[in-house]
């Protein structure tokens, strides 16, 4: 039973509105669902994220915490009300500063910033932070948001900035091409596309870590709730009820079949009319649970009954990389250091919970949802639902952050099942709690390592063992187990090496892909030991890294000879002046014995771009229509990182046309070829390379048709291409050409797959064709009586080969650092305990210090225009650099992440 609807009138964005609804309905849902203003986003429904911030009589409030009755006769302003014909100054500033990445939090920031700027047009940094502290962003690292708000009052020099001319797109620090709808509120995310006639879907999930279950009277349940249409369980799944991102390890049922293996696992879906489903209290659902024994951590899982009978000992995969004789080398070393590190489950905490809808289009199931990997979604959903892959079409919405977790299926098979069974559109938006308990996490790592050095400080050998809690299902566990051993040496020449990585099943949350696939955890192990070696040897910690940094011509621990493009030395060299300045400052500050001590830390990263020694091609299509429109089928899903802009920049320069000439077609599987998943820092490099090849191929076709040389220039006009070379000017009339099956008169479609060599039994091969490198310096203050850490500044030098778009590259670096800060200092997903964004803490705008970015460009011969991947690299050095800086300040190493005040103080007191 719900409340009697009452009429409520208020002013919305300057116009009167009235709505008849439940008086206790949340304002956010009334705005979005009753009135159709979807610019206001819902990230948590609990006031923890601020995405739903609106102004009520000019004051920012969380619309999710306000009853609609309380806004009666008041004035509401949402993001849609900020622009008045043209963008407001702060909207413009967000665009030009790159303050919007995925855009899901952008409305909340813009609204809160508008309230601040009304009172105070020229706020200082602290005022901006105080005003915006209630809005969370997971992409940007906040620095560009602060810049944008502080500079909103400045005259807009960029307002009429022209896009670069032909041949000048690569390297231009352009605002993102798809940014405008992100600042106006027009962008459509997974929860914003629901058709009015869609059924709602509620998911019944296991409240237990491990349980068998039996359903009660499901038909009776439906009958007792008018408006419900059906309940579906595993028995209703028409295909193979087993999915997984790596086909060989696919093990996860879309709906569990009799046994639930983790808390939050889906066991049934309830479909019905929206009001009926929203009125359900799913605690009344007829299911009887029988709890079974469970293991949540690696230590207990190793000895427990297998989660999957086919995987004895709960070992999913063990990866190894071995080179030389590591034990003998350590035994012969001048010095050996040994350590252990434990890291926590880390939640992706994108501000957009998983959402979308499914509908039948003839005999094709169309799924419109947020995602990082449309073709993988298509193939796995088709398998589960017993359809041919071509009978499933994935239409990605804007994706409000992903960071790895939206590679795996979430809502797709559930809404797909309902649409397929009922023939009606079916929509589902995960609640924050559902999102957190049911989707993947970063693997907790339990790591041990020993590293040896000779008297000159050269690394002699390393042994690394890491166990990673992969949870109940495989997801990307195998990838972590393989990637970690390849990378655990760090970007350093390590002649003797043995590293093992194991993915261990438990009944904990599923661990999957999260920006770095285990490498950020392993880097904490290696980089903290490097500091110990350097300090014990009496060497400067940066110099020690420079001595050992991998150089062109050397061979990696995986046996790959690095011919060129190794940029770690350049990164470390670039940091030297900052390092010297920071050390001198710290010495001065720490001269007086004070409660607050300054610490300086440094750490490096390397990271191979793309899949590890297995194919992962991307295909890019460029077509020209008879009308002269140039279309780029850009299948690299832009989850905020900027592929819509970067791939277009590459294509424009490869083809030799101005950026403005290109129209982008998105990653809809029915119209755009597969550009692979947005994962593994692969899109700029691999899809970029496909775009480069495609652009060059199309250019070649045009030049050949015009019979001119490579020096010619192209321009597109209505119905024609004009080719100019010196005095010669040729005009290709497009109407004279015939259209192909895709509707183009000229087209190029090129694929690129990195030339790699699979790893052999000892983990030797050529796992990646391109690597990126980086190093970061952290300056921080530790309050030695409270254990609190205040970050002062972070300087990041990243070798990106070629910065296709320096503005977006900086945005990636700042955002990755923010996630590294979270991992280092506060993020601790405790299963069953932190399924919300107030117990699970991610950095706020006040937790990210100024970040100085140094873009290093050591070109890679393989990457497009020399470019390397960047997306994951950027968070790898942050956490170890923070731990190293805390130790520098206090002498105490925190060995269990996150380094909360409690743990830092315990380490200082020797209780750690």
């Amino acid at each position: 039973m719900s409340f009697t609807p009452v009429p409520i009138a208020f002013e919305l964005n300057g116009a009167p509105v009235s709505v008849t609804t439940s008086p206790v309905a949340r304002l956010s849902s009334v705005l979005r669902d009753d009135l159709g203003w979807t610019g206001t986003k819902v990230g948590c429904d609990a006031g923890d994220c601020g995405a739903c911030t609106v102004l009520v009589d000019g004051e920012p409030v969380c619309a999710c915490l306000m009853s609609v009755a309380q806004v009666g006769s008041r004035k509401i302003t949402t993001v849609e009300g900020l622009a008045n014909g043209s963008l407001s100054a702060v909207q413009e500033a967000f665009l030009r500063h790159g303050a919007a990445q995925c855009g899901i939090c952008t409305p909340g920031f813009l609204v809160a910033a508008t309230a601040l700027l009304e009172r105070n047009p020229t706020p200082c940094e602290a005022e901006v932070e105080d005003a915006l502290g209630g809005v969370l962003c997971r992409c940007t690292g906040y620095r560009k948001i602060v810049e944008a708000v502080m500079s909103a009052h400045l005259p807009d020099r960029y307002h009429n900035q022209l896009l670069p001319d032909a041949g000048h797109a690569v390297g231009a620090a352009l605002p993102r091409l798809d940014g405008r709808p992100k600042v106006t509120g027009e962008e459509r995310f997974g929860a914003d596309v629901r058709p009015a006639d869609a059924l709602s879907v509620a998911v019944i999930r296991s409240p237990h870590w491990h349980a068998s279950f039996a359903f009660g009277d499901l038909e009776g349940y439906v009958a007792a709730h008018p408006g419900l249409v059906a309940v579906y369980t595993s028995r209703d799944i028409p295909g193979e009820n087993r999915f997984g991102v790596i086909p060989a390890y696919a093990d996860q049922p879309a709906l569990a079949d009799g046994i639930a293996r983790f808390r939050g696992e889906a066991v049934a879906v309830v479909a019905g009319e929206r009001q009926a489903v929203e009125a359900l209290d799913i605690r009344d659902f007829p299911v009887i649970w029988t709890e079974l024994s469970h293991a949540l951590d690696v230590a207990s899982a190793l000895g427990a009954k297998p989660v999957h009978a086919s995987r004895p000992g709960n070992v999913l995969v063990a990866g190894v990389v071995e080179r030389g004789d590591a034990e003998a080398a350590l035994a012969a070393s001048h010095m050996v250091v040994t350590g252990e590190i434990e890291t926590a489950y880390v939640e992706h905490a994108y501000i957009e919970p998983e959402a979308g809808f499914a509908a039948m289009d003839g005999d094709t199931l169309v799924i419109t949802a947020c995602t990082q990997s449309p073709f993988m979604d298509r193939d796995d959903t088709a398998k589960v639902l017993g359809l041919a892959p071509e009978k499933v079409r994935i239409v990605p919405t804007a994706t409000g952050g992903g960071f790895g977790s939206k590679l795996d299926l979430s809502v797709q098979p559930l809404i797909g099942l309902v649409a397929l069974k009922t023939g009606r559109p079916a929509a589902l938006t995960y609640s924050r709690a559902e999102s957190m308990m049911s989707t993947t996490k970063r693997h907790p790592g339990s790591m041990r390592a020993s590293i040896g050095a000779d008297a000159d400080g050269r690394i002699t050998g390393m042994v690394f063992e890491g166990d990673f809690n992969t949870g109940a299902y495989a997801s990307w566990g195998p990838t972590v187990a393989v990637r970690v051993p390849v990378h655990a040496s760090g970007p350093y020449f390590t002649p003797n090496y043995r590293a093992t990585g194991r993915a261990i099943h438990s009944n904990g949350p599923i661990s999957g892909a999260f920006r770095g696939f285990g490498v950020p955890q392993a880097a904490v192990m290696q980089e903290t030991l490097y500091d110990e070696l350097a300090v014990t040897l009496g060497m400067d910690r940066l110099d020690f890294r420079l001595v050992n940094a991998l150089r062109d011509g050397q061979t990696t621990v995986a046996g790959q000879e690095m011919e060129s493009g190794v940029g770690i030395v350049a990164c470390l060299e670039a940091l030297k002046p900052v390092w010297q300045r920071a050390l001198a400052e710290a010495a001065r500050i720490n001269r007086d014995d004070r409660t607050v001590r300054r610490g300086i830390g440094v750490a490096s990263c390397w990271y191979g771009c793309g899949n590890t020694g297995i194919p992962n091609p991307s295909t890019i299509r460029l077509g020209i229509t008879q009308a002269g429109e140039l279309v780029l089928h850009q299948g690299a899903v832009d989850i905020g990182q900027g592929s819509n802009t970067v791939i277009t920049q590459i294509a424009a320069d490869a083809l030799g046309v101005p950026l403005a000439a290109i129209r982008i077609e998105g990653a809809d599987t029915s119209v755009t070829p597969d550009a692979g998943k947005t994962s593994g820092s692969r899109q700029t490099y691999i899809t970029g390379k496909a775009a480069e090849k495609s652009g060059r191929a199309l250019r070649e076709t045009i030049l050949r048709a015009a019979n001119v040389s490579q020096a010619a220039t192209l321009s597109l006009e209505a119905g024609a291409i004009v080719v100019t070379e010196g005095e010669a000017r040729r005009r290709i009339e497009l109407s004279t050409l015939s259209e192909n099956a895709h509707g183009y008169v000229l087209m190029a479609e090129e694929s690129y797959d990195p030339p790699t060599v699979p790893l052999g039994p000892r983990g030797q091969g050529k796992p990646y064709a391109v690597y990126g490198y980086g190093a970061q310096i952290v300056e921080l203050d530790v309050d030695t009586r409270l254990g609190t850490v205040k970050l002062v500044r972070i300087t990041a030098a990243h070798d990106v080969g070629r910065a296709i778009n320096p503005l977006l590259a900086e945005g990636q670096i700042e955002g990755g650092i923010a996630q590294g800060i979270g991992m280092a200092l506060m993020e601790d997903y405790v299963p069953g305990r932190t399924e919300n964004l107030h117990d699970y803490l991610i950095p706020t705008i006040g937790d990210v210090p100024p970040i100085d970015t140094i873009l290093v460009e050591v070109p890679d011969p393989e990457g497009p225009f020399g470019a390397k991947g960047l997306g994951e690299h950027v968070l790898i050095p942050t956490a170890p650099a923070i731990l190293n800086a805390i130790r520098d300040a206090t002498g105490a190493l925190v060995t269990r992440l996150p380094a909360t005040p409690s743990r830092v103080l315990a380490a200082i007191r020797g209780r750690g």
Partner: protein
Amino acid sequence: MPRYARPSTPDEAIALLAEGGWTILAGGTDFYPAQGARPIRDDILDIGAIEALRGIREDKGDIVIGAATSWTEIVRARLPMAFDALKAAAREVGSVQIQNTGTIAGNLCNASPAADGVPALLVLDAEVELASTRGIRRLPLRDFVLGNRRTARAADELVTAIRVPTASAAGRSSFFKLGARRYLVISIAMAAVRVETDLQGRIARCAIAVGACSAVARRLERLEADLVGRPADAAALGVIGERHFDGLAPIDDVRASAVYRMEAAREIVGRALADAFGTTAGQGVAA
């Protein structure tokens, strides 16, 4: 079908409450998060339209804060220095968005061990005014919040105001919040202090409260007593000893260990006192 009422006067509200069975909705900042995705099935008494419950006034020298006064209104109000700790706490309640709607009485009625408003109100010797058709009563705050999520409010009572006695609106106050991040954070520990000094600069009266280190924020009476008569300077902090914190019962949880909380409580009490003494800028937040 659940009932919904939105009275415009306290009398209407208490008349309804006398019927029984109501859940009170004020700013909504605790109500909606606790509700989660479940449908609302309770009878809801929405007190958001009762203007008489808002605002700050003086009554016979007491400072009376209407129950539905928002944290933002408290931050913006002209109040004696003794309220600086309350204002500082108000700025740390959630975020600006929460402060704009969350109410002072809601913070008390929600009775979280980590309620930001409680320590600062304890050092002001605040009283809670409750009204029902049975009459009006006042309880000292320490007798109002009984435990984790438990208060002395009877089901038919409405909290109408928080009252700070004239005598306690004196002196300087300070607040220290310790959390694991800068904004939107639930406290690991909090300290609020209020110090009155005599003409010689000696501590004449002082009030000290610690939050998030026991089920209900606690006053540290023994420490208060031991400080009285000492000069309000750094040396006074030397008397702070383990025994003064006996009344606390911190827990181990995801935010911190009990051992840490105890140690941190002593540290932040010292810093808040130093700030109130004016010897150092200790007030603030650490994250």
